[in-house]
C-alpha cells in the first residue's frame, strides 16, 4: 500500500482473532493505513483483505454494517449536536434511541448531548466518535488513536466502552503509539514499523505466544 512513492504498508500477512488487538508502532509506521484497509475505506494495491471470509469492499452493505471505525478525525457533523449526530447514525443503522442513551451514558456524554460537535473540545469529540463507532454494535471495531487528547478519566471511559462491547465473535483493533493503556486489556498485540509487522503475539493463560 503506497502514497505516491512512499510505501505505507509492505508485506502484512496476518489473521485477527476474537477480542481486542492492540496495534502499536511509532508515528508513520502504517497503523492508520492498515486500519483503513481493514475498514474497506482503502483498497490494498496488492493482495487481499478478508473479513469473516469475505473480501472487504466498502461497497458491500453486508460487510459495512459489521464495521465500526474511528479515524484521526471524529467523523461527525460539526454543526449537529452530539445527540443529533448519534441519532442520525442510529437511524441509518437501524438502532433504537435506547441504544443512543446507553452509549451516551457509557461515555459520560449526557451533559454535552445538546452541544454542537464543533463546539466540543478535542477530547470530548473523541468520546463522541467512539460512541458513534460502537453504536450499532459492530462485529469489527477499528479505532485509530482513540485515547488522543483524553484525560485519564475519559480514557478509562473509552476503555470501559471497548470492554463492554467485547464479546465472542467480535474483533477490535486499537491503534496507538502509547501502548501502555491498551496492553492492560488487549488479547493480542501487533507491533508495526515502517509498514512491516515485526511482532504479533497473543495472550494466553500462561503468557504470550507468537501469532500469525
Amino acid at each position, binding site marked *: 500500500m503506497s502514497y505516491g512513492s512512499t510505501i505505507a504498508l509492505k508485506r502484512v500477512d496476518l489473521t485477527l482473532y476474537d477480542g481486542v488487538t492492540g496495534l502499536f508502532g511509532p508515528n508513520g509506521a502504517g497503523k492508520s493505513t492498515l486500519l483503513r484497509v481493514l475498514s474497506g475505506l482503502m483498497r490494498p494495491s496488492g493482495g487481499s483483505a478478508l473479513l469473516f471470509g469475505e473480501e472487504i469492499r466498502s461497497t458491500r452493505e453486508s460487510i*459495512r454494517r459489521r464495521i465500526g471505525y474511528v479515524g484521526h478525525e471524529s467523523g461527525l457533523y*460539526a454543526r449537529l449536536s452530539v445527540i443529533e449526530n448519534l441519532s442520525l447514525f442510529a437511524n441509518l443503522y437501524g438502532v433504537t434511541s435506547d441504544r443512543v442513551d446507553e452509549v451516551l451514558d457509557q461515555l459520560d456524554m449526557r451533559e454535552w448531548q445538546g452541544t454542537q460537535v464543533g463546539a466540543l473540545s478535542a477530547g470530548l469529540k473523541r468520546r463522541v466518535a467512539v460512541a458513534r463507532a460502537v453504536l450499532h454494535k459492530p462485529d469489527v471495531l477499528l479505532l485509530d488513536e482513540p485515547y488522543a487528547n483524553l484525560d485519564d478519566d475519559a480514557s478509562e471511559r473509552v476503555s470501559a466502552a471497548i470492554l463492554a462491547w467485547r464479546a465472542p465473535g467480535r474483533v477490535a483493533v486499537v491503534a496507538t503509539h502509547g501502548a501502555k493503556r491498551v496492553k492492560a486489556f488487549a488479547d493480542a498485540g501487533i507491533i508495526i514499523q515502517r509498514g512491516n509487522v515485526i511482532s504479533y503475539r497473543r495472550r494466553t493463560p500462561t503468557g504470550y505466544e507468537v501469532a500469525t
Partner: protein
Amino acid sequence: MAERGFVSKTTLLIRKDLLVEMRARDTLPPMLAFCLTVALLLAFSLPGNAVMSDVVDLPVGAIALADVIAGFLWITILFAGLIGFARTFEVERTEGALDALLLVPLDRSGLFAAKAFSNLAYLVAVQCVLVPVFALFFSLTLGADWLVLLGIIVLVDIGFVAIGTLFASLAAQTRSRELILPVLALPALVPIFIAAVELTSDLFMGGGLEAVAARGWFGVLLGFDLVFATVGALAFEFAID
C-alpha cells in the same frame, strides 16, 4: 428497531444537509450574493427602453435581445450552481464525516441521490429569487408561458445537478476542488445550457410552447437528464471511493 429502507435513509441525509445549511449558511448566501450582483450589473449593461425583439448588430452578426437575456439568465444560474456544488462535501470534510458516511449500510446511489437533492434544493432556492429579479430588471412578461419557463428550468436543473454532484464528488478528493470542479463539469454541461438558452430565448421572443417544442431542444434536455442521472448514480461509487 427495523432498519430503514433506501428512500428513508436518503431522506435522512437530505434533512441532515439542509439542517446543517440552515445553521451554517455556508452555501446559499454566496450563491445568492453572486446572482444578485451579476443580475444588477447585467441590468445596467442593456438600454432601459429595449424590448425583446430588438436586434443588436454585433461584429459576429445580428442578435436578438431575447437571446442575450436568455444567455445572461443561464450563465448566472450556471456559475451560481457551480459555487454551490463546489461545497457539496464541505459538510463532510470539516470533521472527516465522509469516512463514517461511506461505512453506513446504504447503497452509494443513495448518497448520490441525497447530495443531488440537497444541491437541487439550493439551486431552486436561488432560482426562486433570481428569476423574479430578472423579470423585474429585464421587464419579462411571459403570461401563461411562465409555466413553460418553469418546465425548462426543471429539465435543466435535473441534468445540471446530476453532473454537478457527480463531478463535485471527484473534485472533493482534490485540494483545489473549487478550481477543479468547473474544469471537469463545464464540458459536460455545455449541451444542457445551449439547450436551455435556445429554449428560453424562443420563449422570450414570444414563441409559445408549440414553437419552443418544435425545435427539438426539449428532447436534448430530456436525453441528457436521463443519461446523466443514470451515469451519476452508477459512477458515484467509483468517484467517491
